[in-house]
């Protein structure tokens, strides 16, 4: 298994994501934003950070990068893609995932260790850190997401840090091979730094790709 982790100017968490992929027992390498060649890559991480500064709207510029064009093609062919935080925003901007991420209800950046409930009911302790993480979609779309089983992660009751609709922390596409979430599983892969629950997120994405 070989992961590719995108690197945009302004990415912050790409090295952490690289290490996290390796901790799952896989190989991993960075993919520069100008690269189009994903040959030999089995799964892609679009990492967190502030791609191109995010001065416009989070992820709005990164979606046009050559690497993202390649990722769109990769995803269309069923390749597994994990978007984390800014990566989730990029995937939504690119139309690979439904919905949008708005400014936190508090209007402040918030960094906090919190519990996520995975679709299967598993509880995961993972940090979240973002200023634009309030998941939004129209009610009909949210109903459809829930009906299709596309809600991948919710914040545990009472722990929604940003006012996300229906406590949604992460979603997947209809095919199930593209997953995005605001919290940072790559920062929950080492007992010394607080938790190893994030590994489950990487493993789930890798498994989704294998199934596809």
């Amino acid at each position, binding site marked *: 298994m070989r992961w590719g982790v995108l690197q945009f100017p302004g*990415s912050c968490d790409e090295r*952490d994501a690289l290490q996290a992929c390796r901790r799952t027992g896989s190989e991993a390498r960075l993919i520069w934003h100008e690269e189009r060649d994903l040959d030999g890559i089995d799964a892609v991480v679009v990492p967190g950070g*502030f791609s191109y500064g995010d001065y416009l709207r989070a992820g709005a510029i990164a979606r046009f990068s050559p690497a993202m064009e390649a990722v769109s093609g990769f995803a269309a062919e069923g390749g597994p893609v994990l978007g984390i935080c800014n990566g989730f925003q990029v995937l939504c901007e690119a139309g690979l995932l439904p919905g949008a991420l708005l400014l936190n209800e508090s209007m402040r*950046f918030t*960094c906090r260790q919190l519990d996520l409930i995975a679709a299967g009911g598993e509880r995961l302790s993972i940090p979240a850190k973002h200023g634009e993480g309030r998941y939004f979609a129209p009610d009909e779309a949210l109903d459809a997401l829930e009906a299709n089983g596309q809600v991948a992660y919710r914040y545990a009751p009472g722990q929604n840090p940003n006012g996300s609709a229906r406590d949604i922390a992460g979603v997947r596409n209809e095919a199930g091979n593209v997953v995005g979430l605001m919290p940072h599983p*790559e*920062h929950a*892969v080492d007992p010394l730094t*607080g938790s190893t629950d994030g590994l489950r997120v990487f493993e789930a994405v890798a498994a989704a790709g294998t199934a596809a």
Partner: protein
Amino acid sequence: MTVEVAKHRELGLTDSELELIVEKLGREPNDVELAMFSLLWSEHCAYKHSRKLLRRLPTEGERVVMGPGENAGAVDIGGGHAIAFKVESHNHPSAVEPFQGAATGVGGILRDVFAIGARPIAILDSLRFGELDSLRSRHLLDGAVRGIGHYGNSIGVPNVGGEIYFEAAYEHNCLVNAMCLGIAKQADMVRAAAAGVGNVVVLMGASTGRDGIGGASVLASAELGEGDDAKRPTVQIGDPFEESKVLECCLELLEKGLLVSLQDLGAAGLTSSAGEMASAGGVGIDLDVARVPLREADMEPFEIMVSESQERMLAVVEPDKVAAVIALCEKWQTGSAEIGVVTDSGQIRILRDGELVGEMPVEALVDGCPLYDLDPAEPQGWIYGNRATLATDASSEETLLALLASPSIASKRWAFEQYDSVVGSRTVRRPESADAAVLQIPEAGNAIAVSIDGNGRRVACDPYAGTVEAVLECAQNLACVGAEPLGLTNCLNFGNPEKPAPAWQLDQAVSGLAQACEQLGVPVVGGNVSLYNEGPEGPIYPTPVVGMVGELPDPGKACGSAFLGEGDVIALLGPFEPSFAGSELAKLRGELDTGLPRPDIAAVSAACATVRDAVREGKLSSAHDISDGGLACALAESAIAGGLGCQVDLQPLRERGCSPEEALFGEGPGGFLLSGDREALDALGATQIGVVSGGTIEIAAGDRSFTVGVGTAEGARLSLGSQAEYDGT
């Protein structure tokens, strides 16, 4: 000469300084030269009122890799790696425009660290504001916290700790001190000395605009007062995205060995960075301002030379490597321009399209500023005023809750949750989970701990003892996580040194800093001085901020401050002799006065060693230093953090001669609050005072005995957010 007199004074130079410049040049300086001299001869750049005092500080140590004078200090961490660190102030810009002032404060300290080839791995900040019932203070706090978060979060460097105090003395002149740590391979580190006649001077990063013109002289080296809004153009605007690109670019350039030397552009912009590089290398530099990429086409040479536009770096490059340097800058989508050349002239020569517009000997410009002796005089009595907000007959429970809710003592969660504390995968102990932040260093197979401290109120009570205490508090914080100090950086925030009282405070504080560092064996590897911190009501509390970095072998063993186990024994260790002098309670009661007990540095040092060893051996459940608000607050903090109550009897402290109230709320250095196994604590010689148990904090202290629920105490401790975001006036 009459016209010139007005101009040099406007730029912050005295008449005698101008005369000296004329003498050194052998002629009158032109506008370009005068502007450059005024900046490099400002207090901010020349340390002309503090340099003589700073010679007292010990700077040598076997682990010191780089000491004062470089962009940042650095200590050996093993495995061929070094930890670089420095703290710097951005007070006046933040008082004028808190968001950008604080943001660019972070940006500046990051550049200092990566300028020596270290990748930034942590930020801490030390902030001071007026009381939160002031709208201005809430505005400054909110702006500064947002600004620090904006810059640090965007660039992906975790903010792992810090401190915030609220005192009326900072109402007009808030303090924003930012500290950065970085990790470097020692082999890749670079000094800021220009070298190699004929080498090319390359300006990298952002283009140069009119922002920050005169920041170091007009803003940083003068008191604040009426009309400060007009100084907003002297505050720079930060662009963390640009910095992120420049950072990655510089680290890649250094890793590939493409640079001879590197220097960031901070205060006084090109003038200072080119001047200091030339001075350090004993060479000259020719710069052509026409080659500097500009944001506005019609900038004058003097404006280009003094602009403090952010996110710029100056590098010296061998001619055959220039193309590779420029290609790498293009890869990172950041600017680069060949703007000059290293010469053997010993002169800084400023050209515009080849035409000479300024020429000054490097020695005169960089090292020629006269150094002044201070004229210190101890002020008579307490000069800062008092304001009572808590009745002296308040019950113990009310007093504890008032202390816990006092914004200086309350949890700073509201602030630190606005900062990314986890990026980088190093943060083993996050803010407020332990007394010091702990970062793992897999490169060296160990970990570092870092703490930043400085209680200005106590320094105001006694500048010598208060400064010693700041160093001791850092050492105690490090001991609590099992770390041994390696080095120290400091930021000396004081009032106008030309006035006798601030001069005396500065003199005393530097002596205290020197004494404490000497006795603890901790070298000072760098620092920063910020003077003229005064508002219309007078000087700020004298505020030396100390940042200390230590090493620990096993980050998994670092103790937290939280009580962990029902039934654990609670004990005191160290030469703790609490008194009301300078305490938070004395402040709340409006009873502040001069004088602090003289700290016993050797005894505190010995206690630190005992605690450090015990933590490293895994003998303790928790370790917490007794600081603001005294033992009762320390107990409450450990109880709240662990969600566990305690039953404690303070009789042992009363046997040391404390009144019940002093035992509860008195402050002083040297005290550790430990919990763990009874035998282990006995073996350390710690004094047992109670046990971890239940859901209430029960403290027996004679006629001041009381009980309070852990939840109630936690409510008080978490009140900072509601005070900070109060939207009334």
